[in-house]
């Protein structure tokens, strides 16, 4: 039995090792590849929308990684590459959409909701603090004795 488990573990370890090898991009220039992946991590894959271009295996993501690589080699900055991508695919490709009039709700909505919630909470607490004692039920005897 122990042998079996060992073999299974070895098989798993071996196969995960080969996966890891396949995931490493075959690039001659590791610095360029790292820079490319850094940019690709900020870009959404259009085909499989919850993945970045860095992690997707879709053909389009592979093509776009190649685009990023070539543009880096041509001396483009990361901002220029983001502009290139948004000109073609819109703000949707950016994992961090820019703050502008159409995205105010997206960026500020959660803050507004939290402020509203806190205000409601404060209002309720404030009102309750002003209520006379007989407005509240007496503590349940069971609960008070058990604590």
């Amino acid at each position, binding site marked *: 039995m122990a042998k079996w488990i060992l073999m299974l573990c070895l098989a798993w370890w071996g196969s995960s090792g080969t996966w890891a090898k396949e995931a490493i991009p075959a690039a001659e220039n590791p610095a360029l590849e790292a820079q490319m992946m850094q940019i690709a991590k900020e870009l959404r894959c*259009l*085909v499989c*929308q919850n993945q970045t271009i860095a992690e997707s295996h879709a*053909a*389009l993501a592979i*093509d*776009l990684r190649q*685009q990023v690589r070539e543009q880096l080699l041509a001396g483009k900055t990361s901002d220029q590459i983001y502009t290139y991508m*948004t*000109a*073609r*695919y*819109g*703000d*949707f490709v950016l994992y961090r959409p820019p703050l502008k009039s159409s995205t105010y709700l997206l960026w500020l909505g959660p803050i507004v909701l939290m402020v509203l919630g806190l205000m409601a909470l404060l209002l309720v607490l404030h009102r309750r603090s002003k209520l006379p004692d007989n407005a509240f039920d007496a503590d349940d005897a069971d609960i008070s004795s058990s604590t």
Partner: protein
Amino acid sequence: MSKIRFLLPLVLLACLVWFLGAGLKLDPKEVPSPLIGRPAPDFQLTQLDNAQTVVSRADMVGQVWILNVWASWCAACREEHPVLLRFAARTPVVIMGLDYKDERAAGQRWLRNFGNPYRASLFDEDGRVGIDWGVYGVPETFVIDKEGIVRFKHIGPLTDEVIQTRLEPLIRSLNG
């Protein structure tokens, strides 16, 4: 005050239902194209059936035309094809194909087998022109006006309904 107290949850519920209903109608797969209202991206590609003839953006300016992105490996294009053939038979508008990331022989064979609705198909072997046009899911269809401005984009297979309710009225107004 006490009336508002009763109405408030109802109003909140109505808001929630409205948001959920609106969310149901949104299709996250349909990414709005930033190209709409902007000049069509430049291209220079050979024709699928003639590697010697080059077609560029400038050749198309001056007329309303349709660019339909397809590929022989694309299953949804098979579904769209009869719709496109019917449309091509009755419309005077030029329909150009963009054979996206395909092999020349495979693309030619596909058109021979299933019929050719296109004036010509541009052969985009490495998909570069596709990227310039923001193509991410084949088939896609663009309408370009006489000045070379992209006016409309449809993602996914065209249907008779889309052609009748969106494409044809738009083309009429652009030509009118």
